[in-house]
């Protein structure tokens, strides 16, 4: 069962658009925002060229972009949109509606700083602000992974037992606008992997009417929430399963899908990070090892659902963790650091944790900067 890949030079946004194209959504909503814009532009091109047979809804705001996708999802069809930063904030109530309403919508977020001031460079404040909204959140490190993740997203989200929306995250500009090579499978193989959305989790039916999201009391509502919690647990397993299926079909993987370890299994210091800082950490690890230091890394790919068991295992095996956050929950600390420490405490793992905020505001985080931090931490 061989698949053919074509090595393409493309930007991260191109990779997102092509993955979306191959998944064959039937309703696509489009609203531009830097640095997501080229995704929707590319999709409009595909529609124009007849490659994408979708209803292309050029909405008047992001709030409407997600709303239109929700309408399509309720109608039982596959749908797609993408956003970033202020746009994600503008559609906030719909983001929660989609998560809590269990609509399987795939919506990549190109991470960009939140205003004020106007800063189009990457950090994770935007997607982090929605970690409570009931969406699967996976942070990617490069164009290749963005393609693979977006394609897998449909399969994970639309599974009947999951039915959760999915937000593949990619660093603004560093991934979205940087041209790099990626191996892209054929449209046929890609669609075959995802499969048609033939058994929708919800579908409007005039012969069997129901009301969605009507007034409700604590009873039904809390039942819905309990199932949401359970679905997130099921999603943890599903992400790993689909990731494995993808590896078997297309030959690519990123750890087990939840976290991606790098380097030796045991080291004096383990770097935990997300996104492109994760890839940059790998470079830092290689060079630090050349200098004779004992370091490894574990890139957190899936932030929601939180990969508790995997993080605990990494911490148990290693001696110290350096958690790098590209966002902060002001008044406390970086979100990844907070959550890592909390699960370690829960499972009685006393591996010390050090946190660093790096890359906030889109500040460049080269491997040299990471190396310096590692050295500082090892001295502490």
């Amino acid at each position: 069962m061989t698949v053919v890949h074509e090595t393409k030079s493309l930007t991260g946004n191109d990779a997102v658009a092509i993955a979306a194209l191959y998944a064959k959504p039937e309703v696509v909503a489009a609203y531009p925002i830097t640095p997501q814009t080229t995704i929707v532009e590319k999709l409009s091109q595909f529609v124009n060229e007849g490659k994408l047979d979708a209803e292309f809804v050029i909405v008047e705001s992001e709030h409407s972009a997600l709303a239109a996708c929700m309408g399509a999802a309720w109608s039982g069809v596959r749908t797609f949109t993408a956003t970033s930063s202020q746009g994600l904030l503008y559609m906030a109530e719909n983001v929660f509606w989609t998560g809590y309403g269990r609509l399987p919508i795939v919506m990549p977020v190109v991470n960009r700083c939140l205003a004020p001031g106007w800063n189009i460079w990457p950090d994770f404040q935007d997607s982090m602000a929605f970690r409570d909204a009931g969406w699967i959140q996976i942070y990617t490190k490069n164009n290749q992974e963005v393609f693979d993740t977006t394609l897998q997203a449909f399969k994970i989200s639309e599974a009947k037992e999951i039915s959760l929306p999915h937000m593949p995250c990619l660093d603004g500009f560093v991934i979205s606008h940087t041209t790099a090579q990626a191996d892209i499978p054929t449209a046929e193989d890609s669609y075959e992997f995802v499969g048609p959305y033939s058994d929708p989790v919800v579908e409007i039916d005039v012969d069997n009417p129901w009301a969605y999201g009507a007034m409700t009391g604590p009873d039904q509502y809390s039942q819905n929430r309990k199932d949401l919690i359970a679905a997130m647990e099921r999603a943890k397993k599903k992400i790993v399963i689909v990731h494995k299926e993808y590896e078997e079909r297309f030959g690519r993987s990123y750890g087990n899908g939840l976290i991606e370890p790098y380097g030796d299994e045991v080291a004096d210091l383990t770097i935990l990070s997300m996104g492109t800082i994760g890839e940059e950490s790998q470079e830092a690890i290689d060079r630090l090892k050349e200098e004779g230091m004992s370091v490894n890394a574990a890139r957190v790919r899936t932030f929601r659902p939180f990969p508790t068991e995997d993080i605990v295992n990494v911490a148990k095996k290693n001696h110290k963790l350096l958690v790098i956050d590209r966002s902060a929950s002001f008044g406390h600390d970086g979100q990844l650091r907070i959550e890592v420490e909390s699960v370690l405490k829960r499972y009685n793992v006393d591996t010390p944790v050090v946190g660093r905020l790096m890359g906030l505001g889109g500040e460049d985080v080269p491997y040299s900067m990471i190396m310096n931090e590692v050295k500082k931490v090892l001295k502490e």
Partner: protein
Amino acid sequence: MTVTQKDLLSIPKKAILKGHFACAGCGSALAFRHAIGSIADKVILVVPASCASVYQGSGKGVAFNVPTINTAFAASDAVASGISRAMKKKGKEDLKVVVWGGDGSAADIGIATEIGACDRQENILHVMYSNNVYGNTGGQRSGDTMIGAKTATTPDGNTIPRKMVPFIMMANNARYVATATVAYLEDLVEKFQKAISLEGFKFMQIDSPCPPNWRSESSDSIKIARLAVQTGIWPLFEWNRDTGKAVISRPGKKYVETENRTPITEWTNLQGRLKSITAEQLKELKSDTERQWDFLRKFL
């Protein structure tokens, strides 16, 4: 195709079941019963936060016997667009997508979304039933509140001129725009039927009496709605993009001329929200009402 009372008796199935949550004497529920009832076997309803979200039901079940998607306040027309497009993809364009919301969403918070759907000529009908306030939250002033009306946020009477949503839709190239009232239900259903038979973005505003917020007797609901037409407060018309012309509806024809109109005080006196309108405010209300008529007359 004229609609008679007999037609109202023969609907495919009940769209709203008995024992719903609407207040006694609610104009919106009455309009729903007949309008949605007339297409109950092929309608998909989109309901933004509004009185309809509440009178739909709570907890055990819902009174609406048709597929209903509840949405965030400003989202209805975008959700409706998504549904309409999906139905097109599925080859189910015979199903009618109808937004059923109040003036809060249609005149204010949802207007950008509404105009966006209108611009794109989405194949949906937006029905704005208006009680001239944010009814669901206790009667605060909305864009559709008339001058002089006391509301929860305008205790001395509203001073801001009334937003005329139908005219906004006309200016935005809607396919069909109509005003209606529960006082003339046959006219209402006729316009509703006309609207859903057309393709593109259609808009209807229904004058919807509201005893609690208007501080009126529930038994007076129809009477007040009728007086709104007879006093000229509520022009009854339909406008079609094909002709670019507005036609005054039969029940309202007489009242185009101000001399034929019933004195506005007959309408204000039945409502606590307007009963103690000052002479000054009354003058401004009349003048603002004429502003509407002047605009409308350009299309007659």
